């Protein structure tokens, strides 16, 4: 009996001592790139950033004349006031046609290699001209686009300054890509926390960070400074009656293991860009976490990292707080004062 009482006192003492200061670790450098502050944005060697290119890209990005009916620009679906994404599950293109996938944010998109939900373009240069030629989105052929640009003296001059040529497909792609690489958002509470400011994140966000890199099983896919492995994973989203509404990466590779798989999205500034997932089917961060918590949607190709998590209500709330702590200083970039004429 004496031993029992002594042992209980010992337990109480240990609890009291150890409960004083629990300082959770953050993300340790491991095999995969650790989640941490953003490095300089990668720039392909054949398209170095220049002021002339960026200004031209900015004009092209906000110019609705890049669509067949002059109603849609890049900024229509990747809105600066909506975290450089769109507020609807799928965006509207020309003639109010609806696409099938949610518009991903352009913020920090330069870190993503490859581009698009299915990764069909490697660099931004390839991505930038895709929507222009998509019949649902901007619906212009490249010939029509170049003809329009060549008929606008302001653009001819800007292309001359940027590339020393008349408007070309390659020039359009490189200019828009260069501009998009300036839309970078870092210096979030998470970044400041990782740099040593331990008060930058709330206690709930710190707890959420521990869940993110542990029980929540988020890090295996959302790794690296932009919180994405840029790989393709199947969460079962859109799987119903034995079929996927969208085959995802499979359309690019024809590999059955890619059926229903989509690229891991960047999580920086994710709180600014609802709705979520490739089809915009989840309206809030809470509902996305609920999807993960139940282990995704069972299907034959479900990613092996997907399984029920049994997160408690508080753990889910903490995760949301952590995701909000990834919201950085927004880039001070907007439309040009005047489009070329």
């Amino acid at each position: 009996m004496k031993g029992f009482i002594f042992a209980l006192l010992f337990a109480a003492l240990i609890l009291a001592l150890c409960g004083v200061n629990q300082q959770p670790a953050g993300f340790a450098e491991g095999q995969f790139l650790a989640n941490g502050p953003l490095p300089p944005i990668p720039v392909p060697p054949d398209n170095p950033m220049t002021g002339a290119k960026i200004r031209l890209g900015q004009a092209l990005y906000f110019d609705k004349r890049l669509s067949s009916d002059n109603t849609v620009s890049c900024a229509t679906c990747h809105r600066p006031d909506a975290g450089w994404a769109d507020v609807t599950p799928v965006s509207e293109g020309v003639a109010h046609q609806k696409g099938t996938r949610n518009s991903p944010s352009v913020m920090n998109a330069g870190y993503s290699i490859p581009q698009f939900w299915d990764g069909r373009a490697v660099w931004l240069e390839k991505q930038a001209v895709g929507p222009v030629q998509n019949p649902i989105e901007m619906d212009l052929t490249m010939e029509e686009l170049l003809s329009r640009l060549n008929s606008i003296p302001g653009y001819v001059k800007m292309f001359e300054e940027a590339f020393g040529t008349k408007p070309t497909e390659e020039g359009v792609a490189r200019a828009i890509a260069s501009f998009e690489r300036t839309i970078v958002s870092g210096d979030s509470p998470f970044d400041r926390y990782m740099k040593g400011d331990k008060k930058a994140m709330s206690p709930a966000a710190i707890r959420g960070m521990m869940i993110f890199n542990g029980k929540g099983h988020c890090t295996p896919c959302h790794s690296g400074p932009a919180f994405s492995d840029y790989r393709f994973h199947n969460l079962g989203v859109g799987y119903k009656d034995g079929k996927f509404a969208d085959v995802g990466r499979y359309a690019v590779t024809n590999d059955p293991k890619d059926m229903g798989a989509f690229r891991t999205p960047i999580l920086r500034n994710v709180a600014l860009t609802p709705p979520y997932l490739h089809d915009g089917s989840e309206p809030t961060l809470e509902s996305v976490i609920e999807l993960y918590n139940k282990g995704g949607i069972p299907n034959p190709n479900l990613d092996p990292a997907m399984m029920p998590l049994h997160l408690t209500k508080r753990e889910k709330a903490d995760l949301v707080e952590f995701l909000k702590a990834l919201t950085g200083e927004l880039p001070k970039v907007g439309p040009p004062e005047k489009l070329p004429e």
Partner: protein
Amino acid sequence: MVMAVLFGIAAPSAAVPVFARKYGYNCTMCHSNFPRLNDYGQRYRLNGYRLPGREDDDKTVLETPAPFAMRTSAGFNSDKFKNTVDSTDVDQFQLNGLDILSGGLIGRDVGYFMIYTPQINGSRGVVAQDGSLEMANVVFALPKRMFNTVRVGRFEPAYVAISAKRSLTFSPYEIYDVAYPAGLPFSDTQTGIEFAGAGRCGIRYAAGWVNGTSNNTDDDMPSDLYVRVAKVFGEGEGQTAGQRIGMVSYIGKARPESGVGSRRTVKRFGADGSFNWTGINLSCQYMRGRDAAGIWDTGLAYKFSGGFVEASWLPTHMAVGFARYDWVNRPTVDEGGDVRRWTVGGRYYFEDNLALHVEYSDRREDRLVGPAATERMFTVRLDFAF
């Protein structure tokens, strides 16, 4: 008995900061609460120590930090015995054993795992420990084959359905301790080869060929074979998600207790389940066994049965409570009779790899002659791996 109890308390188990360090993950990525694995950790283990779905990216031990880790526990142990012949009461602070662990990938599809327990002479509160290479195995991953992995060396065999190496409790699973001739726990590591795989519809299977019981001599041919089949319902591996039922059949050869004489047949059959509901897990194991006449000193066949039911509850990832009931029914030819044990306790995690462990266990073993032998064990200790 004393040694069995002491080593029971200090039972080595495997929580491996090596892997957490390698990937930069918190321990709870793979452990619901260390040392118990969650479903992701179980898949990682079954996948030959490669991250599920990211096999192509994994790095070998030559490309990552030195793959070593340690685990020990220290605290207050109280262990009181009655009517036992050679047991000594314990009532003191103790340091309980030391495991040195290593694991990782040797090649792209070749993993390894090792636990070394150095010899420790017991003195002044340090619990004695035999030096042993507790585990050392190489795992070959064979994607898209019927058997996904082949494990060679000394390993925790698949027939141990509820891992004793990663148990939440320090008190042992009684059925595993009893269910082997010559005193070697059924849950102990085996040396040999094991093939394991995963089929459609949540079917998991494994088959192994191992040296077998400890009272076989060194030059005996490996004699023991086993097969395990399990079915998982829902997503997960039945650890903390999904529901799992399984069965195992084991047949082997063992020499008589004296070590002299020809080998005779030992048979085991077990059924198990692991059921999950939110943060609650219910694990159970039932096992029957029969050793041929002549293995035991009595000269008669030895039949026994038993099992355990264990419930654990994780209100958060920082705490777990557990309760277990063990029972073993032994034949009347054995001087030791039926065993009953119940255990309750909990763990609070200050960090993922540092837990305050509190456990109380009450064991009763009937005797053919005289009053039952009892043991009351209470421990409060810090259990940590680093």
